[in-house]
């Protein structure tokens, strides 16, 4: 039953990454947009210095689902592309690694924008 362990690890690591952001929201005057920018840049940085990949292999989606994981995918994509294609990979790798997520977000956001209208908050 290895997968139960995987789920628990994902829960704990993912939850802690969210808590760190919540502390930033409550304790500083950082806007959500700034926190997301910080997290994605942090993800690239932590991957670059080799800290994040071990966390991903430990926690799986617990580490890749938070936006730090988006930075991880960008950095991993770049690394792979530079290995294969040289310097030009620095430009092509990042978005290749995250293409699925970005395209999905654009596509679904557009489709649902056609279907729905905003609701006043309760």
């Amino acid at each position: 039953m290895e997968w139960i362990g995987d789920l628990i690890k994902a829960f704990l690591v993912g939850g802690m990454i969210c808590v760190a952001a919540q502390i930033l929201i409550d304790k500083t005057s950082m806007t959500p947009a700034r926190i997301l920018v910080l997290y994605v840049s942090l993800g690239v940085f932590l991957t670059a210095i080799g800290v994040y990949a071990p966390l991903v292999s430990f926690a799986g989606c617990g580490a890749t689902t938070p936006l730090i994981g988006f930075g991880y995918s960008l950095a991993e994509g770049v690394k792979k592309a530079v290995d294969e294609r040289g310097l030009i990979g620095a430009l092509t790798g990042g978005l290749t690694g995250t293409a699925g997520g970005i395209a999905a977000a654009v596509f679904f956001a557009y489709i649902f924008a056609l279907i729905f209208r905003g609701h006043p908050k309760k």
Partner: protein
Amino acid sequence: MRVLRLNHAPSIVGYAAVVGGKEHEGPLGADFDLHDDSGKFGMDTWEKSESEMQRLALNLALSKGELSYQSIDAIFAGDLMNQCTGSAYGLLSFEKPYFGLYGACSTFAEATMLSSLMINAGYFRKCAAVSSSHFCSAERQFRFPLEYGGQRAPTAQWTATASGAAILSADGNGPYVTEVMPGIIVDKGINDINNMGAAMAPAAIDTLTAYFTETGKQPDDFDLILTGDLGLEGLSITRTLMKNEGYDLTKVYNDCGLLLYGKASQDVHCGGSGCGCSASVICGHILKRFAKGELKNVLYLATGALMSPNSLKQGATIPGIAHLVHISSEQNG
């Protein structure tokens, strides 16, 4: 002298308030003339809904005062949207001389003050003061998209979906606008959009102390001192600091932003805000209490936070303003 005494004090001869669902659910719900729980008022965009609220409010105020729209000489109106389009589109069909105002949440007091001054000076016989705000149009402009998932700070205020209109006239049986006092722009360095009460309170304190100093009156001379929409945080700052200035507001002071919502159950944090907030409280609730004889002497002090989305992004501080309108059941009150 900043206090302007109106020797030919104009009378408020018609008034009406139109609100959205949340405002109708609030403690003053029964006082409002018209409401739409969806907030749409039959329109396909929030901006049009806001304009429609102004149109409806002014029409209702006219009909409640048994006045025709032809009897109006001029309209003073404003809202929160870019370039005051809420007022321009909403009041287009009245075909009357129009003065578009921007005073943020203080707009209704500004409109009432200018209407009163113009009538007092004899240029006009009857003027309409109108203002509105809509949660959905304001949220889009100043904060986040409606469906954006975020948490509000505990000091944040809730933009009211509301509009109020009042008709002021050179003749009538009251209540009267007997004194007005334009506010000064005051900036005490607050740049937190989520604490507008703190940004506007210094302006309210400035206007109030100047008024009491000039007139020699005391807070207890009034049945009610009502700030526009400082919310819970701004109200308590004002109360504390006014005490330091030697004025005890404990008994007579309240705030439109607090009156409009039931705080705990409606989850609006510090209370309401927006041009429509104090407009609807005055035109829905306060003037009705005048008519019933429950109130005779009220100081209405609408506060506004004069920032823009860009000034906030640039980290600029939020200037505040507070216009004072003295409403009395006596023409020389």
